[in-house]
Structure formats: C-alpha cells, structure tokens
C-alpha cells in the first residue's frame, strides 16, 4: 500500500511550571496508507490530541519528523472560525478558506455542502440565529467537503442528532473507500472506532502501546483500563470488607465468544471464583451493577451450596447503553458477609447503534435500554 503519512520518532515536550518538563509524546513511529482509516485511542491526556496537533502543524514537535504525501486538512473542532454575525453562506466561504480551500473550489462544492447540511432555507440568516444542530451540521458539512488527501478528525461525531451522525459516518466511509482518501480519527467512542477504522493505534502515556486490527487493540485497551481501575487480581486487593472467611479470587466479564468486546443487546458472562477458609451450609452471592458515574442500576442474587467455589452469571440480552459499567461483589456465608469488593470488575459496552439514543449519549451517564413503542 502506498503511504499517505509517515510519522518518524515524534516527541513533544511541554514545560510545566518552571523547570519541570513533561513528555506529552515519546518517540512515536506510525504510518498511514492511502485510503486507510486509522483510529487513535487512549485515555484522556495520553497524547492523542497532541499528536493530531503536530500532524496538522498547529504545533511543532520537539523531535522527529513527519512526511506528508498529499494535502492534509484537519477538523479538530467543527465550527472553529465561524463568525456568529455572518450568514450561513458567508460562513461557508470563511470556514472553507480557513480550512485551506480556494474560493473557486468552495463555489464548485457550494450546493453539495448546503444540501448535506440541509440548511438551504437559512443560508442568508446570521448563524447566531441557527439552532445548535443546524450550526453543527453546517460546520461538519464544510469540513466533510474539503478536497484534501488526508483528513484529521478529533471527536467530531459527538455532535448532532442521530440521523446526521449516520450521515457523517457514511460520509467518512465514502471519503476513505470511494475516494481513496486517508483519515486519522481520534475518538473515545469505541463503537465508532470499531465500525469505522481499518487499523487502530493505542497511545498510552505518550508512547505507542500497540497497533493492529480494531477488535484486538480495543480489547487490549479495555483490558488495560480494567487493570488500571481495579487490581488485575481480585485476590490481591486489600481494600475489601467482610470477615474474611471467603475471598474472591476471580471476577471477570466476557462476551459469549470469550472476547472482551461486549455489545449492547448481546450476551454477557460474568464468572466468579472464590476460596473459603471455613465450612458453610449456604453461600449467597450478591452483585450490584453501576455505571461509570457510580449510579446504581440493578442487582443480582444467587444462592448455592456451601462447598461450591465458583459461579457464572449470564445475561443473554444485555440491555445497557454504550458506556462503562462496573459490578460490586458481595459473598455471604450463612448469612454473614465474608467478602466485599467495590468496583470489582469494570467492563465497557459497545453498541452498533451507538448514537441511537442521542439524548442519553449527551448525558454521558449510561443507563439501560428499554424496549418501547409510541402511540400518538
């Protein structure tokens, strides 16, 4: 495959207060093929955005170099450079030229841009009177019609309504597949990354942790998060409660096929294992489900004989929205609590229809999907 972009040994150092230095990026080597969609994932502050800023030439790297084959355009935040007093029409020209298009090429694509955004009736109205949805649609539309060979996109899909989201995804797919243009795409939305990217690079604390197929890297990344949030081994955690007659040894969430990619509406398997140092007639397991914000969602209970040492919880059609969740786990021996682990197990739910419930996504407080229908 022909290369569109080569990143060679890029490092970026920032100075924080006085003489202290901090490497935001440390020796990143990465390249991008023509027509390829590369996803960048990593925790907040891992360096993804810094890398995009260097690629788009907003800031210079401390070390290393970048080779670009073709014209590059960045879409680091839609609507930057829009002026509220100017009309939609004027803003299309202004924004287009800020993004590097000539007036002639904006003119040639003008109708396409307006159609895509669906704002033709409001073209001569100042954008300050636009609804936020219209504003975002127009802004994305200008950027989506850039005549660049490489497009850098940072979290733009977190905006707009569900229909427009789908349009944007389709547009991005079209840009990469039909027009053989390359995209570097940064997002925290694993669903979007998974369905859109050909390859994923995971950046961790300024270093390139891994690159590869989206499935694999996302799984590794989520696995890493799990380790970060809870000790890898529940047996070794010291922040536990209960009288200690039993100790959880393993608490693990998987999909039915054994992978860590858990999808909304599909199955979830939670396996529990424990060791007990005392005889008991009866064991009771209690699990509480919370979302990443710590809001309670549901509980699960199971009673079993005292000599058992493991159990498995199956949820056939997981009714959760996309987002992060965790379980708290309790074990009772003969009615008295023997062990408790808070945030015992984190997992991330992906959704193919990850923007279906737009209102819910905006709250960033994932809850449950409830089947419903409306009559009116």
């Amino acid at each position, binding site marked *: 495959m022909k290369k569109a972009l080569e990143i060679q040994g890029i490092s970026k150092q*920032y100075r924080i207060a006085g003489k202290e230095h901090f490497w935001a990026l440390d020796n990143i080597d990465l390249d991008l093929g023509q027509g390829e969609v590369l996803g960048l994932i990593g925790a907040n502050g891992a360096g993804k955005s810094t890398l995009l*800023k260097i690629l*788009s*030439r*907003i*800031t*210079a790297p401390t070390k290393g170099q970048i080779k670009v084959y073709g014209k590059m355009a*960045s879409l*680091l*935040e839609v609507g*930057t*450079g829009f*002026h509220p*007093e*100017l009309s939609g029409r*004027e803003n299309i*020209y*202004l924004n287009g*030229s*800020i*993004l*590097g*298009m*000539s*007036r002639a090429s*904006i003119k040639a694509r003008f109708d396409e841009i307006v159609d895509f955004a669906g704002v033709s009736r409001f073209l001569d109205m*100042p954008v300050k009177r636009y609804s936020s949805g219209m504003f975002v649609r127009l802004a994305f539309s200008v950027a989506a019609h850039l005549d660049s060979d490489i497009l850098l996109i940072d979290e733009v899909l977190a905006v707009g309504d569900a229909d427009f989201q789908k349009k944007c995804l389709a547009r991005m797919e079209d840009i990469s597949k039909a027009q053989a243009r390359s995209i570097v795409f940064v997002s925290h939305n694993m669903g979007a990354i998974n369905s859109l990217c050909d390859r994923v690079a995971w950046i961790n604390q300024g270093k390139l942790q891994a690159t590869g197929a989206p499935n694999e890297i996302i799984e590794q990344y989520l696995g890493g998060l799990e380790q970060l949030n809870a000790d890898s081994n529940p047996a070794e955690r010291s922040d536990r409660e209960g009288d200690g007659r039993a100790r959880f040894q393993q608490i693990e969430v998987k999909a039915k096929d054994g992978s860590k990619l858990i999808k909304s509406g599909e199955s979830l398997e939670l396996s529990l294992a424990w060791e007990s140092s005392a005889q008991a007639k009866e064991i009771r397991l209690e699990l509480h489900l919370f979302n990443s914000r710590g809001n309670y969602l549901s509980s699960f209970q199971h009673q079993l004989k005292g000599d058992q040492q493991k159990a498995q919880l199956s949820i056939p059609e997981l009714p959760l929205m996309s987002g992060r969740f965790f379980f708290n786990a309790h074990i009772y021996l003969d009615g008295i609590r023997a062990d408790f682990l808070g945030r015992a197990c984190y997992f991330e739910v992906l959704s193919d229809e990850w923007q279906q419930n737009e209102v819910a996504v905006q709250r960033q407080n994932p809850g449950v999907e409830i089947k419903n229908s409306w009559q009116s």
Partner: protein
Amino acid sequence: MASQWKELTQYRSLGISLARRDFKVRYAQTKLGTLWALIQPLLSMAVLFLVFQRALQADTQSIPFLSYTLSGLIFWGFFNYNLSQGAASLIQARTMLQKIYFPRILLVLSKSLVASVDLIFVLILFVFVAFADAHFTLFSLGSFVAALLMSFFASQGLALWFAALSLRFRDLQQIIPFFAQMLFFLSPIAYSPELWHTALNEKFQILLYLNPMMGILEIWRAGIFELGFSANINGISVSIAFSLALFLSGWIYFQKVERKMADLL
C-alpha cells in the same frame, strides 16, 4: 522564503475571507452601517479643528486647515487600523490558532485590506473637501502610491512585531493603544512638520523621522499640495529605511515564532 510565498498564494482566499469577515462584522447591526467609515474621520476633523486651529492656531503650511488635516488622516487612519488591529489579531483568534493550521501571518496582513477600504472612503471625502487646494497630477499619484506603500510596510512591520511578541508578553496589549496615541501626537497630521524645526535641536529632529508618519506625510503632501520637501531628504530617507527595516525584521521574527504560537497561547 520562497516556500512561504508559495503557501501564502495558496491561502490567498483566506486573506480575502478574513478581510471580508472583519469588514462585514464591524458594522453589523449598526443603524448607520458603513457610513461610520465617513463619520469617524469627520468627527476627528471637528475636534482637531477646535484644538489645533482655533485654540492653538497651528501652522498648516499655508494650506486650508481642513484639506491639510484630512490629507493626513487618510494615512493615519490606515496606519492606525493596521497597527492596532494587526497587533491584537493573534490573541483575538486564539481558538482558531489552537485548532487549525493556516499561515498565521494572514491574520495580520489581512487587516490591510480592511484598512484600504476605509482609506478609499476618506480619500473620496478628501477629493470633495480639498478640491480647490489639491493638485491631482501624475506626480501626486506617485507620491500617493509611495506614501501608501510606506504606510503599509511601517504599520505592518510594527503590527507583526507586536502581535508575535505579545503572545509571550501580554503586557504589550496594554501598551498598544497608548503607543498609537503617542504616535498620533508626534505625527504632523493637524500641524506642519516645520514646527519641529524651531522647536527642536537639529540633532533630535532626525530622530523624529524614526516615526514613519513623518516621512509618509511629507512625501504625500509634497505631491498633492505641491509643497516641495520642507525638511531634509535625510529625514525622509530615515523614515523610508526604518519602515522597510520594521517590515523585514517583523516578518522574519514572526516566521521564527510562528510554529510555537499555539503553545504560547
């Protein structure tokens, strides 16, 4: 320098778009709109007339006060807009600088396009006011072009320096209005530069010409009013050389810090 030039020509649409934005936004939602481009110099003229003509009876080289002063305001307006708007342009566009790449220098340079539109308004006003006193000849056209180029180089040079330095030293943003006001009084807009001859020792006079407006106004008035060069050629040469030096050094310094700008904001 060659590759920069190529890039600037690629982005020339942006320069024009930025200027259009500034122009449209400036008088957006005002009742009088573009008329303000005429009202402002007229109001300045009224005040200057009271102070310099009525109160101080300043010499205007035998040219009627209104024509003389308006001839000065044409270039002062251009110079001042470039200087103050250009110097603040980077800080004003800070979100853009952090989000998108484009040649940053266009933010400063594009102010000249807006300033030129204002200049044309005042120039038209001048043609009406000074119809009897001015000499519209080829020579005066030449002096106009020379004065315009000098104003461009000098004001843009200062603006580039201020804009680039003020990212590191925000205090400069406080100094700019004061600096512009100082230049206004030091420039022979509503009084004759000859006043300085009697007021100052010859050694210091040459220093006055470090203010580019001295040279600009003398060149322009020499043409339009057929005054001849009242001062020495030396002074004017200092003005010209200093204007060019400001522009060149400002450009070079600006390019040097351009890639660090997003980190400084």
